[in-house]
Structures are given as C-alpha cells and as structure tokens.
C-alpha cells in the first residue's frame, strides 16, 4: 500500500497569498475529508496532490519519492482521481469508459484482456451501472455519470483515492453507497482523500478533516477535534445548529 505526503506544500491559486503551508501524510487506511467554502482551493489542492498542477512551493511525495520525478504511468498505478467535471467530445459507451481505468496497467502493445473486462464489469456492477454497459456516456443522467466515474477509478484499482465531490448529483441512497465503498477501500488498506460540501457526510465517514479557508489558511487533524461548530461557522460564514443522530454529529444551517 502507498502513502502520499505533502511537505511544506503551498498550492498555486493565482492572486492569493501563500497562507499556511500544508505538511501532512495520507496513510493507508485513512479517510480524509477536505472542507471549505467555494473558491478555497479544494480542487486545486486535489490536482496538486495528484501531480496534475505544479505547487507554488513545497513537494508532494509518493512513497517517499517526489511526484514530479515519477512517470505519469507509475503515478497512475498508485493514484486514482475522481474528477468533478468530465469532457466527452466523442461518444463512448459506459463499458469502454470503465475499461480505460486499466490503461496504466497495460503495455502499449497490449489489448484489454478478459481479466480487465471482468474487473470493469465488477466495478460497474458495484456502482449499480452494469445494466447501462452499452449506453453512450452522453446519454446518461448526472448521477449515472458520477457513478461511472467512480467505477472507472475502481477498475483502475489505485492504492490512493483522490475524489472531488464524489457524491455530486447522487441521490441519498447512492450517496451512502458511494461513501460506504470509499470507507471499504480504506478498510482494505487504501487511503482516501475527498473534497466534500456536505459537512454531515464528512462527520459520518471521514476520520481526518482538512479545513481550507479562502485566504489560504488551513488546519487539519482528527475529525472530532476539527468539526467544532464555532470553527465551521467561521469557515463557511454561516450560523449552524448542531445535534446528534445515530451517534454522529449533524450540522444544520440556520437563518
């Protein structure tokens, strides 16, 4: 299993001060939730951690090696990304889309084999989209496409998941199913870091939390020390009411 470390990392958000440099380690078995208002840099942080954007300062290390020094292929075998937005200029079927998750594992001359197809089919079934296998991606609903994106990363099978709003567009049942899947991945020894808008999902499913402020300030730590109503009210600029349901805190915005 792999670990991902940020060392004195300052993400590059144009026109913003450095704020606080991040030094943290994403360990096998951990589930991190990144919280913050719009424009705090959650997606930028995720892309920087994946090596898709250069940081302003500091380094990201995968198993001790700087990400920038590794080939994209090596990185892609360890790191999987669930993107928030998806482009499809060209039509492709659901099954083809899930199968591209196998790309980092195949040599240039190799075709996808039966094993790869089985992995993709299993992932599609797990995300409840197997019945859509022959459908063109651009004909799917938002929630179906979100589940397909997660199934693609599941097919990829990375040791570290970086997920940008994985519950976007999902109904309540599928929200829970996806969070359970990510928790299961962590329980099997993988590491998960996700950006979330829903405080209550973070409170229920994450064990670590990173709070990002629009000015670049940040704090992070175990869930229970971070999810304090006064801190969260300052983070979002929004008054909250708190209660407890099913053993987890629940935050509700009030007028």
């Amino acid at each position: 299993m792999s670990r991902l470390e940020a060392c004195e990392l300052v993400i590059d958000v144009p026109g913003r001060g450095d704020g606080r440099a991040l030094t943290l380690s994403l360990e096998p078995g951990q589930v991190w939730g990144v919280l913050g208002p719009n424009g705090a840099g959650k997606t930028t942080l995720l892309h920087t951690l994946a090596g898709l954007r250069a940081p302003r300062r500091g380094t990201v290390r995968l198993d001790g090696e700087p990400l920038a020094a590794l080939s994209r292929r090596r990185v892609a075998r360890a790191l999987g990304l669930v993107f928030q937005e998806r482009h499809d200029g060209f039509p492709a079927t659901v099954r083809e889309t899930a199968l591209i998750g196998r790309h980092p594992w195949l040599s240039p001359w190799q075709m996808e084999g039966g094993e790869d197809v089985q992995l993709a089919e299993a992932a599609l079934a797990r995300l409840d989209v197997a019945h859509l296998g022959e459908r063109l991606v651009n004909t799917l609903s938002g929630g179906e496409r979100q589940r397909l994106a997660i199934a693609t990363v599941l097919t990829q099978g990375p040791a570290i998941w970086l997920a940008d709003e994985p519950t976007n567009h999902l109904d309540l049942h599928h929200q829970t199913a996806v969070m359970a899947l990510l928790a299961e991945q962590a329980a099997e020894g993988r590491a998960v870091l996700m950006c979330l808008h829903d405080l209550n999902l973070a409170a229920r499913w994450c064990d670590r939390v990173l709070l990002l402020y629009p000015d670049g300030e940040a704090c992070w730590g175990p869930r229970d020390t971070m999810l304090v109503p006064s801190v969260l009210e300052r983070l979002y600029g929004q008054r909250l009411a708190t209660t407890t349901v099913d053993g987890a805190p629940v935050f509700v915005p009030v007028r």
Partner: protein
Amino acid sequence: MHIVRHALGVTGSHRGLGRPIGVLALAALAALTLAVGIGSVAVSPGELWAVATGQGEPLSRTLVLELRLPRALSAFATGGLLALAGALMQVLLRNPLADPYVLGLSGGAAVGALAAMLAGLGGALITGSAFAGALLSTLLVFGLAHGTGSWTPARLLLTGVVVAAGWGAVVTLMLAVSPVERLPGMLYWLMGDLAYARSPLLPSMLLVGVCLLAIPLGRSLNVLARGALQAAALGVAVRPLEWTIYLAASALTAMAVTTAGSIGFVGLVVPHMLRLVLGNDQRLILPACALAGGTLLVLADTLARTIIAPEQLPVGVITALLGVPTFLYLLYRSR
C-alpha cells in the same frame, strides 16, 4: 446505429477489431481494382487480365500500368493520409469539427509551393518547399499557441485559424504580384487534383509508417480523447503525446498536400462517418480511416476522370458530392 455496429461485428471496444478492418480492406481492394479497370478508354476484362499477368497490348499496358495504377495508388495514399490526419487532429483538439487543414497547414504548404514557383524552381523543389512551408506553419502555430500562458485545444484552434487566414492573404498577394506566365502553374497547384500527382511511393510509405505508429499509441489516444487532465490521471504523458500527434498529423497533411494539393472533405467526413459506425476506439478508427479515406478518394478520382470524359473534373468536387450526403444520412440515422 447499433444494427450497423453489430453487422460489422463491433459490439464492444475490446473485441472484433479485425472484422471491420477486413471489410474495409476488401472494399479498398475492390476500389483499386475498379480504378485500374475503368477509364475514359475501355480496356476489356480479358485484356486487363492479360496486363495483370504481364502480357497484353502495349497501349493497354500503358493505360493500366503507367496511367491508371500510379494515379489510383496516389489517390489511395492521399485519401488515407488526409483521413488519418483528420482523425488525429480531432483527437488532438478534442473537437470533432477539426480537419487536417484547420491549423493552417495547407496554407503554409501553398505559400511554400508558390514561393518556389515564383523563384522559378521546378519539380521536386516545389514539393520540398511546400513540405517545408507546412512544417513551418506547424511550428509557428504550436509555438504561438504555447505562448507564455497555458496551452489549450481552444487556443491552439484559434491560433491555427488566424494563421490560416494569414496564409490565405499571402497566397492572394503572391498571385496578385506574380508574372502572368507563372500564374497558371500556381493556380493548378492551388486547385488540387490527382491529375497532377507524381509518384505514390513516398505518401504510401508515410501512410504505412504512421498506421504502425498508431497501434501502440491507440489506447493512449483513447484516453486523451477524454480530456488532458483525465488522460494525465490515467498515466498518459500528455504533452509528449500531443506533440507526437501534432507532428504526425502535420507530416501526413504536408505529404498529402504536396502530392495532390488540398482536397477537402476527406479529412473531416471520413473519421466522422467511421466513428458513427465503429465507435471511438482509435486502435480501430485510425487504420480504418487510412483504408476508408483511401477508398473514398480512389472512387472519387475514378468518377472524376470518367464521368464526363474527356472532360476531367476536379476530384474535390466529387469528394464533396459523395461525402456530404453520406455523412448527413449517417448523422440523421444516429442518435
């Protein structure tokens, strides 16, 4: 659309790649046979067979071996090059409306060729100059689109369109100031026609070479078609791959333009049609483009030189007349 897909044996991306290629290869062979068999002067099937087996009358041998065959092979290679270049450009720009000429390649080639003609050079020097012009245009567009900021397909496209407009102006200027005795040669070059094609050897070699290159790159191209970020996340070294595609597509287009001038529609319509029928697996689409593009141009050129013979039509007219309705029909039938 599914019915067509099933008929060609393409139900998933991972199997049945061979069958559509086989069908297209047979079609290509049939088109080449037709092109060699018919012309404005009739050669009987028996006589054709005699020529094929190394006999036959001298006139039939001249018609078939020295006029029809090289021209058919040039047409095939040119069509294949254009369709392949179009497919690559479309993946590079993530835009199904891109064609081989969209980034100013044919404009650069035209300026190169006309400059050579103005300087009074001939033959191979014109071809070489056209090729250099196309590559210069390639580097200019890519360098400018790179600029100081970030590189995006939209920026590349816009740069290419503007540079193409610039080349257009230079071509007009050159035509306006050139001495009248050089004018006809320049106009022929700009018209684009297989009647003026020379040896099919170089374009054929390039076509085969890029098809072979496309096999190991195919899956990476599939991933790139989903966007640069997604491709990088799945382990594709995006920038080197984009450079490779761009240079390959440029070389293909430059070769096609220097073989037969700029011929429209093949590069835009053929990849599109194939995607509608075969899906979007580049490992299938790219070789299929080479075969289908070649077949289309061979058929179009055969029509162009026979339909109202002895009058000879420019082949671009035929590619448009064949390509546009077929394309619109497929688009209408697809979901």
